C-alpha cells in the first residue's frame, strides 16, 4: 500500500492503452491472473523483487509463464515494466489497475464483517441493498468475526457503517462512565 504513485502511473498508462485498443476486459483478466500467480508463488515474488537477477532473465521467466496465457499487449506491458526496472511494484500496479477498472465499470467493493455466517439468500439480499444504497454495482466481500457479538460492519472505501452489538456496548459503556472532554 505504500508509495502508490509509481503504481498509479503505470496502471493509468495500461488502462489508457487498453481503452485505446478496446480490450479492457481482457487486460483486466490478464492482470487478475498475474496478481494471483504472484500472490501464490513465493519463488516468483522473490525473483521479481531481487536486484541480483538480470532484467533479461526476469523477462524470459515472465515470458515463459505468461506468454501463452495473456494478451500480447499485456505481455508487452510486462516487458516494459521490467525494462524500466519497476518490476518490484508489479503487484501494486495490477491491484491499482483492478481498482481503476472497477471505478470505470461502476463497481464498488464492499467489505462486510458479520458475527454469524450468512446464507446465500442473505448475501444476495445484502448485495441488493448495498447496490441500492451506493447506486453502483457491488462486489461483496464477506468476513466472519464472532467478536462482534451480533449485527454487522459494512465498510465502503473509507466509510464504515458499524451496526455491531460490540460497538453499541462500547458506546453504552462510554455514556454510563463519566463523560470526558470530547463527549459533550
Amino acid at each position: 500500500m505504500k508509495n502508490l504513485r509509481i503504481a498509479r502511473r503505470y496502471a493509468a498508462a495500461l488502462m489508457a492503452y487498453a481503452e485505446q485498443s478496446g480490450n479492457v476486459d481482457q487486460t483486466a483478466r490478464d492482470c487478475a491472473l498475474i496478481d494471483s500467480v504472484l500472490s501464490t508463488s513465493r519463488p516468483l515474488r522473490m525473483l521479481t523483487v531481487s536486484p541480483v537477477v538480470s532484467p533479461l532473465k526476469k523477462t524470459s521467466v515472465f515470458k515463459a509463464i505468461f506468454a501463452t496465457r495473456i494478451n500480447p499487449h499485456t505481455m508487452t506491458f510486462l516487458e516494459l515494466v521490467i525494462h524500466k526496472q519497476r518490476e518490484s511494484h508489479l503487484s501494486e500496479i495490477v491491484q491499482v489497475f483492478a481498482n481503476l477498472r472497477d471505478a470505470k465499470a461502476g463497481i464498488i467493493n464492499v467489505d462486510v464483517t458479520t458475527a454469524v455466517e450468512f446464507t446465500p439468500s442473505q448475501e444476495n439480499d445484502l448485495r441488493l441493498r448495498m447496490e441500492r444504497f451506493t447506486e453502483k454495482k457491488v462486489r461483496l466481500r464477506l468476513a466472519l468475526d464472532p467478536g462482534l457479538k451480533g449485527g454487522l460492519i459494512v465498510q465502503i472505501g473509507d466509510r464504515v457503517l458499524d451496526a455491531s452489538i460490540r460497538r453499541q456496548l462500547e458506546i453504552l459503556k462510554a455514556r454510563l462512565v463519566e463523560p470526558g472532554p470530547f463527549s459533550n
Partner: protein
Amino acid sequence: MAEVRPDEVSDILRKQLAGYEKEVDVYDVGTVLQIGDGVARVYGLSNAMMSELVEFPNGIFGMVLNLEEDNVGCILFGESSEINEGDAVKRTGRVASMPVGEQMLGRVVNPLGQPIDGRGPVRTERLAPIERKALGVIQRQPVKEPLQTGIKAVDGMIPIGRGQRELIIGDRQTGKTAIALDTIINQKYTHLEQARQSRIKPVYCIYVAVGQKSSTVAQVVDKLKQEGAMEYTTIIAATASDPAPMQFIAPYSGAALGEYFRDSGRDALVVYDDLTKQAQAYRQVSLLLRRPPGREAYPGDIFYLHSRLLERASKLSDELGGGSLTALPVIETQAGDVSAYIPTNVISITDGQIYLEPGMFNSGIRPAINVGISVSRVGGNAQIKAMKKVAGRLRIELAQYRELEAFAKFGSDLDKSTLAQLRRGARLVELLKQGQFVPLPVEKQVVSLFAGTNGFLDDIPLEQIERYEREVFELMDLKHTDVLRSIAETRDIGDAVAEQLRSVLKDFTDTFKASVKA
C-alpha cells in the same frame, strides 16, 4: 433519604438500552502506514479536514496537519509506542477543540482540556475550536482601559491596556514569569465589590505553561492559591515531558479560552510562558512532517504561528460587548540578543515590550526593567489621569539620570543642577524597586510616585527609601484613606487632593528625616 428500588434501576437501564438498537455508528477510517517520533502517516481518511482530531487505538488522539496526495500526516497527542502499523484510525469529525466556560476557572488542565489537577472532570457546556481566525478591523476598538499590573515601573512608564499585547522579553532568570504572576495576582481587586462600584470590570486570567518543568508549574499553582488568585485563573500546562504537539497547541488553547470571556463582554488576560519553547516544539513537529526547514531550521510559517496567536488578543467594539483579551507573551533571549530570529518576529507583532536585563537584576534592581528600551505603544491611553500626572516626568527624569550616571563618580566636582538630577534619579530608581508577589493598587502607586517626582525623597538616604515608602503607605492606610479612595474613584488627583497630599507628605518627611538622624 429516598430509596431506589432494584426494579426502578432495571427499568431505567432497559429504557436506556432500548434506544440503542436503532443506532448505527458511521465513521471514516484509515490505516496507519508509518508511525514514529510522534508523527503518524495514515492511508485513507480521504475526507479528513485540516486540524481535525482523529482517534488512534488505545484512546490516543492526533491532529491532522498534512493533507497529501496519498496519505495524511497526523501529530500525536500521546505516546506513539502503543500504536502499530496497520492500526485503524478514526475521524472524529471535530476540528481540535477545547472545553470553555466558567467551570475552567480554578482548574489546571492540559491543552486538550483534560484536567491534570486530580479534581475530577471539567464539565463545560461548550467546546471552542483551538484555531480560530482573528477578528477584523471593524469589530475592534482602540485600547483605552488600563490593566494594572501592580508593578510601579510598568504601570508608571510602560502601561498596559486591556486588549493590548505586551511582550515580556529577557534572558533566563531575569524575572519574566515574576512580572506575569504579579499581574495575575493583582487582578484580585477587580473581582471585589469595590471595583464594581468604581466601574472596574473583573479580569479573568489564563496562564499557559509551555515546556516548563512540572515542579515549576506546581509552584505557580501553589503561589496563586496562596494569594487567592486561583479562583479567577485557569492554568493550561504542557510541560517539558509532554509531546511536542501538545506544547505547540497549548497557547492556542489558552487563546480559545480567553476568547470565550472576551466574546461574552468580559475582560481576560492570557500569559504565554513562553513562546520560545512553543516555536521549538513547532519546529520539531514541522521537521518530522518533513516540511522544508528555513532559517535556523524553523519552518517557513513560524511568523504566522505567532502572529495568528497574538492577533486574537483584542478589544472588541461596544456592539460586540466591549470585552477584551490582553496577551502577555514571554520570550527568552540568549545572551541578550534581541535581534535573533524569534525575538524579532514577536517584537514586530506585539504592541510593545518590557525588556529585562540580567545586569540590572544582578545589581539588585528588581524588577530588572530597562525603561529606556521598553515601550508600550498604547501608552497614556491605558493610564488613569492620576498616574499620567505623576508618571509623566518619571520617564524623562530617569532618562536624564541614565545619561549622567557615568559622571556620578566625580562626586562633588559637579555643578548643583547635575548633582540634583543625580540625586533625584538614584532615588527614583530605588523607589521603583519592588518585591515579588506584592503588587500595589494603583492609588498607592500614585502616592509613591507623587512623593518621588515632587522631591520629597531628595534628602532621604537611599537605603531608607524602602522604609519611607512602607511607612507612607501605613500612614495613608491609617489616617488618610480618603485620599486613596478619592484617587481610586475619580481616577485623578484634583488640586485639592494634591494639596492635601503635599502637606501630608511634607509633615511625614520631616518626621522621617528626624528619625533617620536619630
